[in-house]
């Protein structure tokens, strides 16, 4: 285990793990937005960005988020710049929560994530429907928001486990 932790490649992987995961999830053909089940979809990128901005803000740079947003727009076919804007807003909300929090609490983070999701998804809906004249299925949007909110807890535990697993790197640094 120590060998693994002292390995340079593993250290780099740990440092850039959230970033790699973000770009893979954004660029992968099969992403977590829609796994093909009826009335089931969730936005993995939102969970990832919110968690890491809250817990380890240096893991995701603002520029990377901006570029990831552009990539997401290209893949999904949305007007370019809208996902960047949403990612950065999400990041801003998470930074605000981090600044006002003295004693972190998972449930409070979760509730704040719901409020953030509602705000940015409403913003996304308004801009897509009223400015860019896209037709968006209401049910899909609501289900997407709901599942993203529900899955936050699940992914928090997974990310927490991964962070703990690689904790040696941080101490080594």
């Amino acid at each position, binding site marked *: 285990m120590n060998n693994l932790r002292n390995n340079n490649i593993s250290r780099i992987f740990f440092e850039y793990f959230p970033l790699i995961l973000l*770009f*893979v999830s954004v*660029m*992968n*053909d*099969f992403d977590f*937005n*829609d*796994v*093909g089940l*009826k009335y089931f*979809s969730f936005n993995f990128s939102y969970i990832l960005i919110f968690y890491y901005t809250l817990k380890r*803000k*240096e893991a995701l*740079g*603002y*520029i990377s*988020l*901006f570029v990831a*947003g*552009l*990539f997401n727009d*290209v*893949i*999904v*076919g*949305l*007007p*370019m*710049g*809208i996902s*960047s*804007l949403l990612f*950065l*807003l999400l*990041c*801003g*909300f998470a*930074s*605000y929560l*981090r*600044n*006002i929090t003295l004693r972190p609490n998972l449930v409070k983070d979760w509730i704040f994530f719901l409020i953030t999701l509602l705000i940015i998804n409403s913003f996304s809906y308004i801009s*897509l429907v009223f*400015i*860019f004249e*896209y*037709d*968006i*299925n209401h049910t*899909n*949007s609501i289900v*997407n928001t709901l599942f993203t909110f529900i899955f936050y807890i699940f992914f928090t535990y997974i990310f927490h486990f991964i962070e703990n697993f690689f904790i040696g790197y941080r101490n080594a640094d």
Partner: protein
Amino acid sequence: MEQSRDDFVIAIRSAFLKKGAQQRFSLLGLIFFSVIFLILGSYNFKVVDLVKISIKEIVYRSSFIVSGPEKIIGASFNKITDHINHYSSYKSIEEKLGKFESKDLSNQIIMLENIKYKKLVDDYFIKNNEIFAKVLIDKNSPFLRSVVLNKGSKNNIKLGMAVLDGEYLIGKVVEVNFFTSRVLLLSDINSKIPVSVSPNDIQAIMSGDGKQNATLQYIQGTDFKNNIEDMMVTTSGAGGLFKSGILIGKINATENTELNDLNVDVFKDFTQLKYVKVISFSKEEKALDQTSKKELKTMDAQILEATKQKENIRILLEEKKIAAEVRKNIEEENSQLKNRIYNLQTKLLDAEEAVEEQTFQKEEMEFLKLNLLYGHKCRKTLFNKLHKVGTPEYKNCVLQKGKI
């Protein structure tokens, strides 16, 4: 109160304006930049357009590479599922093949007749540009049902071209880059295609449902109660973008379905697209001159030939049917005869057993009679050394009337 407002302002300022140790831009700066990018993009600002095209080219290619492992896993899973379902699907395919083979000739005749009549009414479209392309990205986004192809303006792909998988329409080209292009699938909520519902030739507009299938809009009040299961949806050719009669799907409705709620089950599964055909159509520019009359004659001859073949096949099929019936009758008779033989054999065995029983009883009676008359000559007593009663020697002695 004043204190909490200050705290809020400080937190907001820190979150949005303060640059982190490794950040080159503040969050607010980048948010403004995205908004400007979005606005300039919507006004087709040239520099932004160029940036967009470059990003698209890079992202489409990279996405194809990044999706590689997942595609391999998906393909392996499909392969395993195919193997599991192989036998049952083979059986059903075998059954269907038999039916389709007999229908094939009828279809050929209908197609030839159709071409002939379309030429007569000057509505015959021919493919003037056919390009085969590979699906690079198959994005199942809840917002947009589209795929990205590996052919672009370099390969003569133009906006609005029809995209087919086999003979089935799957969408149209909505975005063309130099090396790539985007196809809006029929299932997308923004896709609107003029269609015709057969056999009554009802005109409608088909819109995607945002999932896998589509719905019919602007359909006029028509009685759908008859033959609702056999209603096919094809392109109507209205608008001149597509030729008429390209297959799309089947109406999925029951007798109680409302007219505004008619769903179309498209024939193709949009999640399984790999290679597609991008086609544009144009009208055949031939008047009904001498050449086309000759063509019509050739076509008539072909129709006649196909009709003859069809008739031959029908006769052969009838003969086959009769032969199968005869064979079935013979098999039934054979089985009946076998049953009769078996019954007779059983009866014979029973009779043989009865005869044996009677013979045995007769012998016993004979022995008992002789035993009464000559038993004393063979029976062992204190004064002689003859045979003990019940032994085979005693029986022999009795049967020989006491002669030892």
